[in-house]
């Protein structure tokens, strides 16, 4: 085959181009530390990367949601715990007073009134701007009373739910109705207790007081049952949080496997390519400079 000067120059040039193109590609991989720098580098890998990123972003959001849920359940638990203690106190007063201690009755009445108001205040706790025991009516205080200690529930029975997974949402609230009114009506019971303590007719009063002991005991059980339910939701949230943490680690691993470049390999290849490039340059210099004219004199 006849080899002309142009042919040699063109061939040398095109192999230099190949070398520099490879060099550039490797350089990009090393400096971005990613194997895939555009969808065309690996279309299937790119699809996977987008999937993994989406999952990671979802997991972060679920964690935010779970934190929100745990905060509300925590606060609900502290309220109910305090209410529990207060109801216990009221029950003790009822037991004592049903034994007939008439001198301490006015004090007892005042104490129960205070207990009533404290329970009312606790039930009207807010988390930020929202009332936690009102169901869906989060901008309205769940309970109020009139002068006769008749309580009214202004909330509803709505569920507050949070999303913790794909199409998975959990109820995180307790309604005032469920905790304090359905089954045993705590407020009505306390009202009757107050009326009994303040009844001028002491015999009828004592009888009334006595009839409030059982309801108040049942009220304690009722509140405990509600607390247990909330606690199990809390545990469910924590378990989910742990699972999500593990899952996130796995996904991050898979993302890194797909997306990241093997730095050691990339740098070695870069070195090899650099050497190849320098070799072609040296060879080019040697063969392109000589021609017959150097020897003809």
């Amino acid at each position: 085959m006849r080899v002309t000067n142009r042919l040699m120059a063109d061939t040398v040039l095109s192999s230099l181009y190949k070398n520099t193109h490879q060099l550039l590609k490797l350089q990009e991989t090393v400096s971005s530390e990613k194997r895939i720098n555009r969808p065309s580098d690996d279309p299937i890998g790119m699809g996977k990367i987008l999937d993994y990123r989406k999952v990671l972003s979802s997991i972060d959001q679920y964690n935010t949601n779970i934190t929100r849920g745990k905060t509300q359940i925590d606060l609900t638990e502290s309220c109910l715990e305090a209410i529990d203690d207060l109801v216990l106190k009221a029950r003790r007063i009822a037991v004592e007073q049903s034994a007939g201690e008439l001198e301490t009755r006015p004090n007892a009445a005042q104490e129960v009134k205070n207990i009533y108001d404290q329970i009312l205040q606790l039930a009207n706790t807010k988390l930020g701007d929202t009332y936690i025991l009102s169901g869906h009516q989060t901008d309205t205080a769940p309970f109020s009373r009139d002068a006769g200690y008749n309580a009214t529930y202004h909330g509803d029975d709505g569920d507050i739910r949070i999303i913790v997974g794909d199409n998975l949402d959990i109820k995180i609230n307790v309604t005032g109705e469920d905790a304090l009114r359905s089954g045993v009506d705590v407020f009505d019971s306390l009202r009757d207790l107050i009326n009994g303590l303040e009844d001028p007719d002491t015999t009828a009063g004592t009888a009334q007081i006595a009839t409030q002991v059982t309801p108040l005991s049942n009220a304690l059980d009722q509140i405990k049952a509600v607390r247990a339910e909330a606690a199990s939701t809390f545990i469910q949230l924590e378990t989910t949080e742990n699972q999500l943490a593990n899952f996130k680690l796995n996904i991050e691993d898979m993302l890194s496997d797909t997306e990241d470049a093997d730095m050691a390999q990339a740098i070695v290849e870069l070195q090899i390519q650099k050497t190849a490039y320098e070799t072609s340059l040296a060879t080019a210099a040697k063969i392109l400079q000589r021609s017959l004219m150097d020897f003809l004199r």
Partner: protein
Amino acid sequence: MPDIYGILNVARGALLTQQRAIDVTGHNIANVNTPGYSRQKVNMQTNTPIPFSPGQMGTGVNAVEIQRIYDSFLGVQISNENQNLGRWEAQKDCIEKVEMILDETSGYGLSQAMGEFWNAWQDLANNPSGHTERTLLKTKSEILSHTFNKIYSDLQQIQKDTDVSIKGTIQEINLITDQIAGLNQQISQIEVTGQNANDLRDSRDLLLNELSSMIDITTSEGDNGKVTVLVSGGRPLVQDNSSWDLSTETNVSGLQDIVWLDGSGSSANITNSISGGKLKGWIEARDASIPGYLSSLDDLAATIISEVNTLHQGGFDLNSNPGEPFFTGTSASQIAVNPSIVNDVNLIAASGTAGGVPGDNSTAIAIANLQYAHTMSGGTATFDDYYNSVVSDVGNDVQTATTNFDHQTSMVNHLNNYRESISGVSLDEEMINLIKFQHAYDAAAKLITTVDELLNTVINMV
């Protein structure tokens, strides 16, 4: 006549012939770097011998023609491969731009915008009456709409840019065909007289090569040395001494169609019958690939709009009124957040019941759950699945175009190298030829000196 003057004639012929040869060698050396140049050589032939005693007497040498060293079959092959090269080059450039627009590797593309949109609904579900959460949702929704709008309009801009390239190329094609027609005339005029129009043929071949990278052509050379260039569908671009022009006209989509003008006022639309060259690459990207991506984007946007709106209108806002449509528009270019919601975020309907306001977040949860619902591809894919497959498609298209382009480049390089090895000038070879012809010239000059001495001897004999 075989006498002393005959010898002088032989010497003179030799001198002139070797001089021609050195001339042509000089032409070769001068044009060693000229693109498209084919080396030339002088064909020498012995003159007609004269019958004499003791036998046929040779009468010297004559330069009969200057021949161009050239493989015509190779020219056709190169032209064909050039068409494919031009096509894949143009297609690759176009679709690489699309890849850049989708910009998914940096993580700030549509995928992230959609993800943040769904997350904002979950944040709203966590606090349905919160003003901050509502404002954040509004902002993320606006970002989503703008991202859709921008990607759509960027893709349309690529289409318009290819139109500019197409117009420019058409003008170049017209210039080239004019030149080829001119060369046809010159070449046939010269060759009628029996001489080879070597340099003009080189120019014409170079022009044909350039033309083949732009559009698919079939060429054939007639007996009169004129080349006929036909374009898709057998329409002539160059025939004899005349050339036909191509032009563009705007079609129903607002993009340019390519038409062939027949010179007497009517035109034929050849856009769909072009099958090679850069024009084909641009047309393929502009009319097939990009519209595919545009319609996928439209599908995605339309489904998001209708699914979100359906749920939103079934919910209730902070004023306990039924939700208005959340998005306006029906396509990727029109999608926008309802202006009344932009002005008053309380109109975002998070609640599922009128009475459940403000704590009820069931509509917000339902909308957030849309991201897992199989709403695309006839109920088999989620929004993210669908979009991811669009991105993969673009990646695949670029890969295909790049692979074909690389393959074609090495094909064309190989053919060009082969052509160069046949028709190219080798300076070493020309140097040696120069020495060869110079010696021959010296010898012929010496012959003249000898004849001169012979004549002197004869004249001084008497």
